[in-house]
């Protein structure tokens, strides 16, 4: 039976897609929200570190599955190999209702003003396709606020002198610190830095009918035991469903974007939960499948009108793939600093996010989430024994004595770091898979060294006795913070969408996920993706929607 025509199809029920589904269905548009995964529950996963979304040597519990999904990773020397969702080279976020927002660490950063104007702040960077965003912080500010209040953030910017201006405070008070973070906070002050409590998409007090955080250690990588972590799966998506206007179709894999002879979009084709190929027509299609899967869909939807893939007339689709080159330092203390109060990350500084002499960009720095026991086996100073008596002794002695400071280096976008589709490898449904290739620039390494030094300095001031730094590799990153592959811009010849996420030249095709980021900030990206979801939705409603419902 054919599906009924709807106003809007949204592909992907993650961070961006969840927000758009709520905004459009609440405004009265009929929406079909496609998600290739399903709902997930805490009780099906519990404390299983080996399948957690933070590091998944056995398999990623939050998807995608190991049987039907694969990708191709291209090494620096051009060698191609097939990679699976439990390998870092795959570049996995998740595949479930809410996607990464179910299992994330929930840091809720607003980008700083400079993060939107990287080119004009730092000038030309050799080898980079660096550009300013077509919108500025002030454009997105009201939408950050909306994300903070509708999805729920605990924080207090007044303690962060580098925070960008805001109109309204966070809806919930900031979290306090566990023993480790209190020691680090004092150390940061001693070093002359400006520590504050990380804004978090977690409830520091009951909010919108759900309870408050209970501070377990299995937080990042896991669903929340008491539903106190806020993602799209427990906020905007349920709101969208409650309008009666949003039909969420789980286990449905969108295969192609359909276009007519004029090149306009008419809907999508998809494999339903029984793997039957079907079509869903719509007036508008919004792609929110993530910065790796959205370009894949565009490239896989070539037609006579769009011979190189949709939106790809000037070869920008899939280019400028960015992530964050994580860098920092670990430190061991002479006494126990661990008190088992999760999730661990709570103290941060923005002193080195920008304006670092001789460096392009920089990073926010924060203490790390608690590493679980298996992950801790990889936490070792260089040259340490990996096994035997020394291994066991290290675990016993230092699990309670270690702190780590890390930050997401803002990578410089480059044209060669990219998502393509493979000519040979296909997924379970016969669809060409994502192929990832590229590299990081030397500039990123300079920034990483600088930031690692600062992390070490912080640990030293806090009293760590044994400190070692860690630097990222030069290979392309495409994992949890993937972004940039369909950048927005004013010039159709050097970007994929306009500043509203509307694909250049196709008035009824939009993008609303991390693909839009021109640059990826000195911060974790999710609040910016959510804010863009609101921003893009508002424009869709202005151009295509019914009159906005008036507030009574």
């Amino acid at each position, binding site marked *: 039976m054919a599906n009924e025509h709807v106003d809007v199809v949204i592909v992907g029920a993650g961070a961006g897609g969840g927000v758009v589904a709520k905004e459009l269905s609440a405004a009265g548009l009929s929406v079909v929200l496609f998600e290739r995964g399903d709902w997930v529950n805490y009780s099906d996963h519990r404390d299983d570190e080996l399948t957690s979304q933070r590091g998944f040597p056995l398999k990623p519990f939050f998807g995608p599955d190991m049987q039907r999904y694969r990708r191709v990773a291209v090494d620096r020397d051009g060698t191609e190999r097939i990679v699976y969702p439990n390998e870092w080279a795959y570049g996995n976020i998740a595949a479930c209702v809410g996607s990464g927002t179910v299992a994330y660490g929930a840091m809720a950063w607003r980008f700083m003003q400079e993060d939107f104007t990287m080119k004009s702040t730092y000038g030309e960077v050799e080898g980079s396709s660096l550009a300013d965003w077509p919108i500025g912080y002030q454009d997105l500010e009201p939408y950050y606020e909306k994300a903070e209040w509708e999805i729920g953030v605990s924080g207090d910017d007044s303690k962060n002198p580098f925070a960008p201006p805001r109109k309204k405070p966070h809806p919930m008070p900031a979290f306090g610190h566990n023993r480790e973070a209190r020691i680090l906070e004092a150390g940061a002050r001693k070093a002359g830095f400006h520590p504050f409590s990380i804004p978090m998409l977690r409830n520091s007090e009951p909010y919108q009918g759900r309870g408050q955080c209970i501070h377990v250690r299995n937080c990042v990588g896991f669903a929340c035991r008491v539903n106190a972590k806020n993602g799209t799966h427990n906020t905007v998506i349920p709101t969208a469903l409650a309008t009666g206007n949003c039909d969420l179709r789980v286990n449905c894999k969108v295969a192609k974007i359909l276009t007519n002879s004029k090149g306009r979009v008419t809907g999508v084709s998809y494999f339903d939960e029984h793997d039957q190929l079907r079509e869903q027509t719509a007036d508008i299609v919004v792609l929110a499948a993530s910065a790796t899967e959205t370009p894949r869909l565009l490239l896989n939807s070539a037609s006579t009108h769009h011979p190189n893939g949709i939106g790809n007339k000037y070869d920008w689709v899939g280019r400028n793939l960015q992530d964050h080159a994580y860098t920092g330092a670990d430190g061991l203390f002479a006494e126990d600093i661990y008190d*088992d109060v999760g999730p661990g990350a*709570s103290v941060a500084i923005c002193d080195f996010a920008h304006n670092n002499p001789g460096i392009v960009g920089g990073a926010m720095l924060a203490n790390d989430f608690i590493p679980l026991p298996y992950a801790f086996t990889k936490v070792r100073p260089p040259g340490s024994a990996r096994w035997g008596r020394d291994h066991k002794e290290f675990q016993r002695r230092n699990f309670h004595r270690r702190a780590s400071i890390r930050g997401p280096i803002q990578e410089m976008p480059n044209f060669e770091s990219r998502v393509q589709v493979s000519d040979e490898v296909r997924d379970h449904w016969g669809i060409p898979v994502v192929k990832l290739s590229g590299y990081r620039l030397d500039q990123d390494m300079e920034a990483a060294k600088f930031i690692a030094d600062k992390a070490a300095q912080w640990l030293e001031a806090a009293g760590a006795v044994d400190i070692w730094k860690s630097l990222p590799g030069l290979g392309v990153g495409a994992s949890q913070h993937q972004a940039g592959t369909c950048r927005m811009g004013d010039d159709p010849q050097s970007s994929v969408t306009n500043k509203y996420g509307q694909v250049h030249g196709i008035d009824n095709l939009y993008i609303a996920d991390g693909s839009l980021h021109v640059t990826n900030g000195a911060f974790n990206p999710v609040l910016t993706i959510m804010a863009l979801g609101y921003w893009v939705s508002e424009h869709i409603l202005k151009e295509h929607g019914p009159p906005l419902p008036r507030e009574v």
Partner: protein
Amino acid sequence: MVSGSAVMSGCSNGLISPYQTLTRREGQLVEILADRIIPPDSRNPGGKDARVPHFIDQQLGKHLSDSLEMYQACLPALNEACKSRHEVIFTELGEQEQILYLTDIEAGVYDSGPERRLWGHFAPSLFFSVLVDHCMMGYYGSPKHGGNKNYASYKMLGLFVEQVPMRPRSS
């Protein structure tokens, strides 16, 4: 369910393997290796008693099945290649010599030289690093995958399994 290989090994040895994927002989070797990699001591169990071999056995038939071929090639090689420098096979060495031998494998001493061919196309040092990683998964991961008996490693680290909710102090 007893898999085909377990039944066959049971027949050929005249004994039933307590393992599903590994043969009885392979399993015994993994037991020794698990104890060298995570040794027992007066305070906490070693790899064998924490059921690391059962984790490896279970996962080689499941999520880690890509490594099965490597184990099948490298376990007998590890045992035999020992002869060239230590006169006897690995299982007949004393504990200290076993540790020295494994340290050499880890350092790549056997990655070239006359015994290299015993290992097939897997470098000995690569196999050893995979084995160490699997032992760590088995010792520290959730018991639902077959290892970490009674959360032995969580107890070792002083961690409650089901955490009691706590509040951080406000800053």
